[in-house]
């Protein structure tokens, strides 16, 4: 981009009870592409410097743990956490590494690294809200990053980027906002999600909205119409999927004829009901020409 060496922003990414889907989603970022993110300025003047990322770094084992330890001493990094943090049995359900005979749990790593970070980004619904890892009956006592902040009195600024997976634009767009507007000027909603990406309901921008308004509902997958009856959680889910779309705008969930599962919500996956069953607390406009929607 320019010839002057820009400001390096150290980034540490640690992983708890994850599926690595947050990383594979991030890897598919298009503008900037991941090679741009790794090698070039993400916005003019700022370069992300990936100190620690388990999926891309060369070092393993002791050396990897040493890199993390040194970074923790130097402070002033952005900490990205994906995956939930198990707290049951002292966090034994996720051991992230070992150095000189000492094992580190994800819980210990979070408590060690989060207080000295410039900001913490909880990436994906597991880190932001517990998500799949904390799904009922939550066998391992999995908690979100925010939960750990509360129980351990950590005051570092926290931004949640939920989604299962999160869209890569939601992560890098938020980092771009942080760097250009300043961390304090990134507007967040009540669940600490950036309003730029999570400010509107799926429903508000859905191309099937007209079908919903006129009461034309698909009865089975493949039918024309709104997918509300087939379990779409779009009416209660905040994300910009309908406008942004996915994977270089090739498609998105509702575009592929499938109902939204509400994956950016704190209630995902337990409190939204079955994926293919209708949510019941939304007012449905009455269409006199059609039979009334039966409540279960």
């Amino acid at each position, binding site marked *: 981009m320019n010839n002057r*060496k820009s400001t390096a922003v150290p980034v540490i990414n640690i*992983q*708890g*009870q994850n*599926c*690595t*889907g*947050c990383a*594979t989603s991030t*890897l*598919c*970022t*298009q503008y900037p*592409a991941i*090679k741009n993110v*790794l*090698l*070039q300025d993400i916005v003019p003047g700022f370069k992300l410097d990936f100190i620690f990322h*388990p*999926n*891309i*770094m*060369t*070092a*393993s*084992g*002791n*050396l*990897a*743990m040493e890199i993390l330890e040194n970074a923790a001493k130097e402070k002033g990094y952005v900490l990205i956490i994906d995956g939930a943090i198990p707290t*049951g*049995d002292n966090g*034994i*359900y*996720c*051991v*992230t590494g*070992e150095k000189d005979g000492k094992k580190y749990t994800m819980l210990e790593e979070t408590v060690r690294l989060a207080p000295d970070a410039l900001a913490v980004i909880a990436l994906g619904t597991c880190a932001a809200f517990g998500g*799949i890892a904390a*799904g*009922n009956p939550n*066998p*391992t006592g999995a908690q979100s990053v925010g939960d750990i902040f509360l129980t351990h009195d950590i005051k570092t600024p926290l931004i949640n980027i939920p989604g299962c*997976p999160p869209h890569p634009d939601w992560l890098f767009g938020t980092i771009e906002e942080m760097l250009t507007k300043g961390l304090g000027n990134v507007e967040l909603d009540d669940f600490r999600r950036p309003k730029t990406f999570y400010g509107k309901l799926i429903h508000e921008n859905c191309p099937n909205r007209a079908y919903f308004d006129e009461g034309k509902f698909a009865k*089975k*997958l*493949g039918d024309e119409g709104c997918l509300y009856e087939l379990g779409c959680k779009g009416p209660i889910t905040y994300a910009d999927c309908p406008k942004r779309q*996915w*994977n270089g705008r*090739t*498609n*998105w*969930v509702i575009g*592929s*004829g*499938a109902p939204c*599962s509400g994956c950016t919500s704190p209630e995902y996956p337990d409190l939204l009901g*079955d*994926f*293919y069953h209708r949510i019941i607390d939304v007012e449905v406009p009455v269409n006199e020409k059609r039979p009334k929607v039966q409540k279960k």
Partner: protein
Amino acid sequence: MKKIVIHPITRIEGHLKVEATVDNGEIKDANISGTMFRGIEIMLEGRDPRDAVMITQRICGVCPEPHAMASVGAVDQYAGLDSKIPPNGTLMRNLILGTRSISDHILHFYILSGLDYVDPAAVMKYSGSDQDLNILKYFLQQGYSRPFLPRDEIDYKFDTETTNAVVSHYIKAMDIYRKAQQAATIFGGKWPHDASIVSGGVSQQLTVDRITEFIWRLEQIVDFVKNYYVPDVIAVAKAYKEYLEIGKGCRRLLAYDSYKTISDESRGDTLFKGGLVNDIDTYSEIDISRITEDVTHSWYKDKEPLYPGEEKTEPMAGKESGYSWVKSPRYDGKVYEVGPLAGVLSTYLGKGDPYIKNMVDNALSEIGGNISNLYSVAGRHLCRALSANILADQLVGWAQQLKAGEPTAVEYDPPADGEGIGLCAAPRGALGHWLKVKDGRISNYQVITPTAWNASPKDKDGQPGPYEQALIGLKVRESQSPIEILRVIRSFDPCTACAVHMVTVKGNLIGKYKVV
């Protein structure tokens, strides 16, 4: 005797630890541990069976699509739909799984394993016109080096020219990975965690322009597989020749049938033929009822090994004899390796398809090896690349069989009770899902993943798992994290989140046991 512990093993999926006992530079014993546990199946109890297709994808975000495929296979069977899926549905499922598998193999060879064989920090002196290399060079000139450095000692063997070429492909692979996922998303809805794979078929409707778009997007991916990926793997096998002998493993292979074909009778019923391979090249049919899971050294309550459909697991974090969250799947009580090596050899030996036979034979003659050399670090990489090549040759044909405007799914109208099994070839090998339904809700769910087979700990007879067998006898350099160990482990393409998830839905009380 000294002990080497490598934890974390980076550039894999998930949380994995290796502990090796070394004497005189040679590994005498090895313990492989999966160190993260979630208990995904617990969540499935009482849910709508269709939800399993969505939730089991979250077992793994690197390879969610095979979980969707195995799960939807199990749900289709339970719902009595497995023979009723419209051709469009079967083809789209193949195209999603096939395209994403290719991208997964590319991810594994370049992004995950690549840095074991090629040094991005060595392009400082590059003077050509490749844009990606010049960007990397400028990055290095400014004093940046992370995440490539620091690192433990690695014996890089490529000359400057090959290094530049392969590093440039390493960067290009990041673009190809994204592009392949975008192509498959035309049918799958989003990556990762496809939305459109549903019991009865696929929810995505088909139009001619979407099919054509897919075929055009595929062109670049196929080109990369044939002109970059396969040649680069062969270059590694030639430059690192000792790795055609290193990391042999248990030398027993297991694979499932995968990718149903629609009309191309010459290829048989599935593209990849499942089976067992023993004694290097002896093929036999597989009987999945002989699969059991052993928990002797896993953190679960002790019991006799059981068939996955019958398995009831009780986690026990403090178990003294345990050292991993991964269980030990066994076939006839014996250790088997799964993965593209198994899938390709089982098809090569069991199907007699001249096209696949020639492809394997040609690759072997180019690297100067024979079938026994496939049981090795380089052999695993090669079979993974050949597997991608087989898929790359097939996908366009499948896409051309799609019929725009015709049905993609049949209606889901399941019985109250039933069972189903779904098997498929995941990028990392044989994957199976076992489903039981009562009163329309899931009553039992079991998954045996490829990495559970490969990363399994020792069993009741003391037989080490495939990773462990591949490490025992390995000569290693003086290092905290010897590169030889990492090359062997990464050649299997570990996916630990997949391997550790298995808990049956009944009677688990995690947290009941005191943890040391």
